[in-house]
């Protein structure tokens, strides 16, 4: 098992966080949050990966002693995707309301709260 998937997960996380820090568009910022989150998918799947020909843990067409990848992390990733979809949808709907009613999606135009 190489270190490559772990490095990729770290890189995706940093790319997402960098985007969150520098973004001037809230739609993009929410997208960057989703990018940062997808690093968790990569990490979890990398953890569950087993070498020597392990396949998906669907036993309908497999012998019960066939080598399979770890099903637990796959369940975690599914849950994670549901959580992420909820949060992304909710945040995007807030951005839509902001655009509709106040005409901006630039976080630097929001100056009502400081100090």
């Amino acid at each position, binding site marked *: 098992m190489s270190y490559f998937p772990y490095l990729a997960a770290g890189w995706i996380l940093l790319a997402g966080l960098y985007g969150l*820090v520098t973004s001037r568009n809230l739609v993009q910022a929410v997208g960057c949050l989703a990018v940062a989150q997808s690093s968790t998918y990569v990490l979890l799947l990398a953890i569950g990966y087993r070498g020597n020909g392990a396949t998906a843990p669907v036993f309908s067409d497999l012998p019960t002693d066939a080598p399979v990848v770890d099903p637990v992390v796959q369940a975690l990733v599914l849950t994670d995707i549901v959580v992420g979809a909820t949060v992304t949808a909710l945040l995007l709907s807030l951005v839509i309301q902001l655009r509709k009613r106040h005409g901006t999606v630039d*976080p630097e135009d929001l*100056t009502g*709260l400081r100090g």
Partner: protein
Amino acid sequence: MSTPDPLGTADLLPLAVAIPLLGAAVLAVAGRRLPRPGRDALAAVWAAADVACLALLWARTAPDGRAVSWLGGWTPRGGHSVGIVLVADRLGTGLALLVAVLVLAVVCYAWRYFDEPSGEHGGVFPALLLLFEAGMCGFALTGDLFDAFVFFELMGAVAYALTGYRIEDPRPLHGALAFGLVNSAAAYLSLLGIGLLYARTGELGLAQIGAALDQRAAAGHGRDALVVVAFVLVLAGPLVKAASAPFHFWLPDAHAVAPSPVCMLLSGVMVELGVYGVARIHRVVFAGAGGLPDAVVRDTLLAAGVLTALVGAVMCWQQRHLKRMLAFSTVGHVGLFLIGAALLEPAGLTGAAVYVAGHAGAKAALFGLTGVLLDRYGSVDEHGLHGRARELRLIGLLFVLGALALAGLPPFGTGLGKAVTEEAAGHWGGWLPVVFVLVSALTGGAVLRAGLRVFGGLGAPPSEHPEVAATTGEGEEPEIREPGRRPPAPMLLVPALLLVGCLAVGVVPGVGRALAAAATAFTDRAGYLTETLGGPGGPAPAAPEAWWTASGIGLGLLSTLLAVGFATAAIRRDPRRGTGGLYRATVLPLRRLHSGLLGDYVAWLAVGLAALLIALTAQL
């Protein structure tokens, strides 16, 4: 260990989460057809049902015992399990009970609060409140790290929606976005940490991970870089939720703009759940031989707590937007709770638990009373409201009492909590009680100053300092559409009852004693591990004293006097006088850091976590 009788103690755990979830679904559906009073009554019934369920759970668990519920009957075999577990000890149950009581209070407070659209959206607000309750109760009761993440995100997502509930104003949307982006980013970092722990141990339950790390340590594979990185990542979520500096920036933005009933929950109990999460995860997973040494964790968390407390107190004093002031006071107090939890011993934790209970009453009451101001005058600005609320005598009296409770006046529960925590902290560092007195005096003093100005009209109207871009609190949308009406009875009654609750924590000896036993059982890591994995729990060590001492009363009176002194000095200060050099050198840069920019907040999240990692690694 499920028992055969129809409603065993273990069955109450999933029920405590299921009742509000079910209630939310029923309200979302039936709310469209019911008239307004029917909806509110239905919400109150569901909230009361959860209070009853958790009170029963509290009554049925022994002071030093735990209730364990393996969902779906997937109990462990030979110490291993693939099931998901809920574990309730008295501290977790107590916190969940606090959540339920506050939700009930908020449902009653909001009885006539919103001019809610009827028809299709009827019942959405109470339904969201119940969903929020389910998330918070689940987080307090779960014994599984991944479930903790899911409940964390559940309460997070509902809280973002509740914060941005009033979309007519850009500020709630701004606050909700800052809240959502920072908290969810932190939650995903936590999930990365959970993944690393799973990779190392193959377990997801708190107790199972802790036991597996210990076994590895016993076999000679002790702590390494992965465990330290996982520790920092897993704690990212709870630390951000707890608004520990420098992760606190989202909190004042969100609390200043959320509807007042929602603020009562956010400040009263949600933020404190973050401290609970830090303490629980550290204690069960990382406090053993395979985790991190206590001394290292203690010093690091103490530093974070002191920084948070001081930043919160200083910023609280600077505010004129009342809700933002109360939000920064929450930051200051959470810093003190974090100090109590960071001592990693029963006495500190006992103090923090009593303090949290007292603070929840006082802070929720203050937010509730501020809601009355917002309702009546459409403003929460200390300067703009100067003297305008003289007519609301009873409300003013309660507000001042709440401010004194924040300052730690005996015999309020906040005073008792502060006394117990600062005595425990004094054993570790003789200077720590100074932090407690100073933070209580500054936060209490700021609120007292605002109360005397708004309700008493004391002092000259303050002048503006244009050098700082401050959040003013003028021009807020009133949350109710009948300006000038008498405040509805629940909006007065609920804050009054909450203050009575805060007082009760300080004067009823049983509360402190029960929480001391709960905190002692909480620190009994071996007992948690064996009892969760199916073994018998051993006897817990003796609980510390949690009652008033002469020094505690003295320091409580001192901080109250200081608060009164600060408030008087601020009111008597000549409004034409400028600001000093010290202010310009220290406070002004700190205020400028609170820029309201989402990018800055995420940058601080990354910087803070890097600092935490460096601080821990340097000490190992």
